[in-house]
């Protein structure tokens, strides 16, 4: 089964909007007195796990082998990150290093986007993959630095590249249609 381009474009648009909602939920959680608090929402971890299953579905239905190999790594990273975040937010697993899970997941997924482009530099959508990889990796890196320095900010800087990543996904069908 090869998905038609229209379905791929629609999936980009919907998932881009969903990702935007998820990162806003994750990075803009305000306490009652306006003080930022760490999100305890279950949305992000479950979204990571469902996303991992979706990516493994892409592994299964991919048309060429290198797509399978890149996607299974994405799937593994997201599944592990989702499970660890879920364990922490449900209170069954508490470790200080869990703060690094989400930034590292974003960073490594961004790097894998770049690897994907390196393997197939002239493939269709390579420039989009490159832009998305840079944005996602940058978002992860910025958030990693924030966590490392124990910085608490009302609006984390990482939100900007991550939102850019989401907007790039939304822009893909627009660009394709035009």
């Amino acid at each position, binding site marked *: *089964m*090869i*998905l038609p*381009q229209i379905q*791929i474009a629609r*999936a*980009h648009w919907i*998932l*881009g909007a*969903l*990702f935007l909602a*998820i990162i806003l939920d994750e990075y803009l959680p305000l306490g009652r007195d306006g003080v930022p608090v760490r999100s305890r929402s279950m949305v992000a971890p479950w*979204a*990571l*796990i*469902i*996303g*991992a*299953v*979706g*990516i*493994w*579905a*892409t*592994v*299964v*239905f*991919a*048309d*060429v*082998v*290198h*797509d*399978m*190999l890149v*996607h*299974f790594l*994405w799937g593994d990273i*997201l*599944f592990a990150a*989702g*499970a660890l975040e*879920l*364990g922490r937010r*449900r209170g*069954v*697993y508490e470790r200080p290093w869990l703060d690094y899970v989400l930034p590292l*997941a974003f960073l490594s*997924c961004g790097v894998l986007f770049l690897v994907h482009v390196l*393997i*197939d530099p*002239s*493939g*269709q*959508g*390579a420039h989009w993959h490159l832009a998305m990889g840079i944005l996602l990796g940058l978002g992860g890196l910025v958030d990693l630095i924030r966590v490392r320095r124990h910085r608490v900010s009302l609006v984390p800087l990482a939100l900007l590249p991550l939102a850019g*990543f*989401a907007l790039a*996904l939304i822009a893909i069908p627009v660009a394709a249609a035009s």
Partner: protein
Amino acid sequence: MLLLAVPASAGAHAVLETSTPGWGSVLAAGPQVVTLKYDEDVVPRYARVAVVAPGGEDVAGPPRVIGSVVEVPLQAGRTGSYTVRWRMVASDDGHVTEGAFSFGVRARPLPPAPASGVSVPAAPELLAWLQFLGVVLAGGALTFRALVLAPAARALGDRSDREAAAAIWVAVVGAAVALHAGLFGFLVGAYPIVGGGLVNIINTQIIPIRVGTHLGQAWTLTTFAWLGVLALLVGAWVTPRRREPILAAAGILSLGIAFGISWASHPASRGALALIADYVHLAAGALWVGGVVALAILIGVARPLSRPDREGLVIACLLRFSKVAVAAVAALAIAGTYLALRELPAPSALLTSRYGVTLLLKSVAFVAALALGGYHRRFAVPRIAAGAPAATIRRTLAVELSVLLVALALAAILSQTPPPT
């Protein structure tokens, strides 16, 4: 992160969109031409198409390329299965894609015939062993919990689930290992079908093999099932109140996955009864080996308990497991004997073929493990009941487990060895 579930763009390489005859189609007469339609233009000079007839000869003429359409004249008339093996270079990016599919003339097509002389040594056996191990660790160990440990603990009034974390981690490791072994097992299995060099395999167009072979179909099913098992295990981890039913469901699903492994095995081509026998053989083996793994874990994690509680729990589990193991071993032996009689053309093949010798060695390992199980049932359990420490069984349990793992490795070799004719 749902966004990352977006399927990859299909336009990066010359991907085969349609073909005439189609994948898996059955024709009343041999076609005069095979037409391949790609999603982008291909370079005529580098277009290669071979059509292997039932007798093994290539019946394809020189390919004619018009943009993204490749036509190949044929001299196909004989009844049987034909394998179309193609290799194209995309005009725009110069990337090579390869693929294979099959069709039948007045006969059901077989999976694409492997290209001769290409395979990855030892990898299929190792990956099959890891898949078996996944079923054992997730299916066998979790089913042991549901059938043996949970009822025994309830009977003793023990409501703690102190070994649940260990059981979840063991099952997660098993499921994750099997998930990845399945992926690489599929790729290693597809490699000789497609042919070409190792570098080219990453550009291989894999869809016909996924759709048209038992290997691909089984991999598709087991992949989603293992993901379901992993999701259930995460659910069990984060919701302690509903842990037992979720873990039991994960165990049952993991044992069900063994059917997918059987679907891609030799017996699957021998009819429904052989397929069911293979599944029963594998599931019963997983229950036995997984139970021994779970017992070993239990003896370790029960150490903090007071001695009477510990001994009571271990003895109750041993007694219950004995009954389950007897049933599992009986099913294993009956199904295994049926499969051996089905696959071996004559008793002499036990000594004269690779398949037979491996089967013989596996039977020896089975008998050795059975003897150790009998020793536990006949001597070790009464001794512990009479007051000996539960840990005395640990050493012989470890030996039994080692022997069973060797038997499992031999089963994996057997699953990748063609039966003698």
